[in-house]
């Protein structure tokens, strides 16, 4: 049932949350992935094992963390291990069902750039590699989320290889978990999937109020469109209520959220300065 008003950010988070099945072992990163994991665990996937690369395994997010070893995630968790072992004994050994990755730039075969918007060292930075290359290579499946309009014909820097040149190139290389790779990309405009043979990205569903032309406007290649288009999941009250309890600021866009928080801090400082 849905009685609440829902923001665009909330719809994206719920869409990501629905990708997690009960019982999945899932690697999460900071931001939307954590929110999605928390929503899933508190609604349809209570037995999911959520983990972060810092070695916090089987945890229950209760507050929005700001980093991957955040103390807000260590109030009760099942397995404390080091980062090296997360990538070897969990991911590379084949026990990681899903990984969530945030995307800076992506090409049509799901190769990712989270490092530089040009050639280093002079280029503008995105962030850097973090855990992305190895999670993307060894999780059985990866769910991608992208806030910006980072579709490009050719990546200036390939941080994390996806389907490489498409087709069976990834499988044939022998360097990846068989059958792995991105299954879905969620952006503010819609949901994208990858063709099972060509591995080319296509538009699978649109979010409310968005037309195909608006999606095409961001994409430098001739985007293929599913026929018929799929649908986006309609959030339920329990998901929205939980999400707002976990992170009240996450209902807003990043910019609006930052402005609201900074306004609150300024108010605190003024009150302090005027001795109230």
């Amino acid at each position, binding site marked *: 049932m849905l009685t609440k008003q829902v923001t665009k950010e909330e719809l994206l988070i719920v869409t990501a949350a629905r990708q997690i099945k009960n019982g999945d072992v899932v690697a999460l990163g900071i931001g939307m992935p954590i929110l999605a994991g928390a929503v899933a665990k508190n609604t349809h996937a209570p037995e999911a094992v959520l983990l972060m*690369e810092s070695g916090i395994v089987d945890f229950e997010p209760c507050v929005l963390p*700001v980093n991957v*070893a955040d103390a807000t995630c260590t109030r009760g968790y099942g397995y404390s291990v*080091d980062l090296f072992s997360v*990538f070897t004994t969990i991911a590379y050994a084949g026990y990681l069902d899903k990984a969530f990755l945030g995307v800076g730039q992506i090409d049509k075969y799901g190769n990712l750039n989270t*490092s530089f918007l040009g050639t280093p060292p002079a280029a503008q930075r995105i962030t850097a590699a973090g855990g992305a*290359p*190895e999670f993307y290579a060894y999780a059985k499946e990866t769910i991608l989320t992208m806030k910006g309009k980072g579709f490009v014909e050719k990546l200036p820097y390939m*941080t994390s290889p996806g389907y490489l040149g498409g087709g069976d190139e990834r499988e044939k290389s022998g360097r990846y978990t068989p059958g792995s790779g991105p299954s879905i990309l969620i952006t503010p405009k819609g949901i994208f999937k990858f063709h099972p043979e060509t591995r080319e990205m296509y538009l699978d569903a649109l979010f409310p109020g968005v037309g195909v032309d608006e999606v095409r406007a961001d994409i430098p290649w001739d985007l293929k469109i599913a026929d018929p288009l799929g649908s986006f999941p309609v959030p339920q009250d329990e998901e929205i209520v939980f999400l707002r309890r976990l992170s009240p600021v996450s209902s807003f866009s990043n910019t609006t959220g930052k402005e609201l928080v900074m306004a609150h801090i300024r108010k605190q400082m003024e009150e302090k300065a005027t001795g109230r």
Partner: protein
Amino acid sequence: MKNCRPSKVMTAHEAVSRYVHDGDSVITGNYTEGLPFSLLFEIIRQRKKGLTYYSQSGSADVEFMVAGDCVDKLCTAFLHKWGGRAAGGMVERYQRAGKLQVEDYSNFTYNARLAAGANGYSFMPVLPSIMDSDVFKIRDYMGENKFGVVRCPFTGREIPVVPAANPDVCLLHVQRADKHGNAQHWGGLGSTVHACLASKTIIVSCEELVDFDVIKSSPHHTIVPGFRVSAVIEEPYGCHPSELPGYRNPDMTMLRFIDNSFSSDEGLRSMFDEWVYGLPDRASYIKHYIDVFGVESLNRYRARSYYSAPADYGVAFESGWDTYGQALLLGVDIAGLEQLIAEKGDLVDVD
């Protein structure tokens, strides 16, 4: 008898002046949480120069170190995007201006360098997919030595490898330690243990200094043994505004305040006179925080306790004698043992 377990307790000022030298390689041991800000601010105040700094998390720690003009080379796996899309944080501004060399690894390959260093290997195999990534192909100051490729003698497969890293100094902040340097930490481990054990000198700051009795009843929390540690600093709030399980959440007020400083031309430098150079130690930093934001703000992020279940290390016997005074396995008392020795022992004349 010589005291082989001296107290290593000192101030942050003493530790940094004694153990951190211009041109050293310095690593922050903590991975994204518990960042050793008191020690980092001390390095900046002492104006150490030409450091090669290892920071896996690339959080506010590296922004302060770079803004303090302490760092020539940075080895990292992630950089938080401070300061908005276009301007970026201090690392990005310095890198783009050619004032800082940055070598980018992934979290795993960064950790693998330390795992090699900690274990005494000269290199460490890493996972093969990295060979398709520009993390492997694009190289900064490490050049040819950023990655190598070897052939597995058993399968014949190509295996990418990274060289060992052995930083000169590791900075670590933990919940508690004793005066000998036995350091106990719980929470997200990341590559913390490898970072410490790979390093030649380890400086530990802790929220609380405890007796060895506390350490020995909870050895599963000891991540670095005292014999590897050179200095111990009791430094409450030593990682503020970063968080520490059992003590506090990230101080979002301060972190937002830091983030906001990047909007000025000077970026983070605009905070230095007031927050770094102007405050001689951690106690004065916290006092200043209270003056600016109020004690309510500090306390808002304080942790409410959630205790670990005690682990029972109890044993049946604490010597070779049972609780009834009978020798284990022999079933005699002291007099009985001495009688047995007289009768059956291979006695020697030592007078």
